[in-house]
């Protein structure tokens, strides 16, 4: 029951970016630039209002996909989900860049039964059994979102960063663990593997509790899907883009909602 509730709430969260942006989903690693052969990071994952204070819901770790520098998928250790946040540890023995991703691919349905509004989230093949036969005003949306962060031991590498060509994805032009204040960083946004042009991208530094404004920076992707930010201060930036289209793979769904989020650490000079 609780699980279902969390899922429904998460679902609302994932749909929100298109409307008023209230809740933010994120992963924050304890370090992104790492030296030493016996290196580990510990990671928090949650949905919250403020960055990065868990105050709403924990992230669902069944969506977690970690890719090592050699391209293999690796497992987290000590994974746990609490009231407000999930947490896990990750050994980073390989030199290069690891990609940590919460991949959410599913469907979301709004419907009415006996005049009562209901909503459901799950996998596409569960759709038929999940929605009662007497449901009215059934509206199905397909969702594809990724929430990512990156950690690098030694020299940054690209082996873990290959796009899956599903939904919105980030391709680094500037290495995601090589960001410094005052320097321009450029990335490319892909939609189903093709450059995603003219999509709004925002960036907000963490520690929002200790200032009065969000201090959101925004930009848009160019015709090649590229966008850039020049980081004014050091910190953990929450970078987010969202979009929607009608290219659904589930026939009941008329609309597809897309989201991409990355937590990127910017170090001082």
């Amino acid at each position, binding site marked *: 029951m609780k699980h279902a509730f969390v899922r429904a709430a998460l679902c609302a969260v994932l749909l929100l970016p298109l409307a008023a942006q209230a809740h933010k989903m994120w992963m924050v690693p304890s370090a992104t*630039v*790492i*030296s*030493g*052969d*016996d*290196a580990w990071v510990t990671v928090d994952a949650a949905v919250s209002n403020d960055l990065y204070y868990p105050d709403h819901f924990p992230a669902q770790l069944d969506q977690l996909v970690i890719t090592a520098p050699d391209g293999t998928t690796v497992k987290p250790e000590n994974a746990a989900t609490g009231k407000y946040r999930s947490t896990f540890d990750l050994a980073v023995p390989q030199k290069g860049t690891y990609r940590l991703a919460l991949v959410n691919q599913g469907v979301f349905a709004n419907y009415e039964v006996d005049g009562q509004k209901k909503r459901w989230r799950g996998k596409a093949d569960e759709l038929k059994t999940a929605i009662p036969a007497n449901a009215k005003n059934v509206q199905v949306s397909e969702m594809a979102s990724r929430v990512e962060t990156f950690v*690098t031991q*030694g*020299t*940054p590498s690209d082996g873990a960063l290959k796009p899956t060509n599903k939904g919105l994805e980030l391709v680094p032009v500037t290495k995601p663990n*090589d960001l*410094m204040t005052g320097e321009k960083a450029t990335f490319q946004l892909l939609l189903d593997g093709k450059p995603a042009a003219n999509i709004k991208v925002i960036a907000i530094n963490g520690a929002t509790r200790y200032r009065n404004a969000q201090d959101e920076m925004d930009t848009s992707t160019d015709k090649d899907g590229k966008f850039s930010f020049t980081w004014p201060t050091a910190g953990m930036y929450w970078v987010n883009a969202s979009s929607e289209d009608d290219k659904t793979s589930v026939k009941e769904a008329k609309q597809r909602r897309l989201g991409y989020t990355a937590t990127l650490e910017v*170090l*001082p*000079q």
Partner: protein
Amino acid sequence: MRRLVPLVLCLAATLPAAAADLNLTVEIPALKVAEYHRPYVAVWVEREDHSVAANLAVWYDMKKADGEGTKWLKDMRQWWRRSGRDQTMPIDGVSGATRPAGQHQLRFTDGKPPLGTLAPGHYELVVEAAREVGGREAQRIAFDWPAKTPTHLSAKGSDELGQITLDLNP
């Protein structure tokens, strides 16, 4: 005696070219803090495009068990980004143990490792220090290589580094 003069002059003319060197003094300040750890220090020569022409010294805790000492190398974050992350520690002829507070003299000779042969041009000597539960600081001294005349340059650190002097001999 008269015969010696041309010989000495001759030596004087030939020696400097062969012995161009770079003498460096790095001061680690004595700090009155409750918990003191010797700083990690990196010294390197940077080209104008910030690429590293030579790593001259890396002082870190080599004795810690299980490679714990390498865990903090990234705290020298400029060095880590420019060069450290591409290295395998220890670096032969470059890395060594941490050093106590005081003046440390280092001498590097043109054509010999770790300085090697620098192409003529404009460079920066960079000294970066990072201290466990302390601060981090980098100082830079710009210089032209090779020096036409003996040149004395210096920089003064404010927190984690003291006086830094660079003497170049043609």
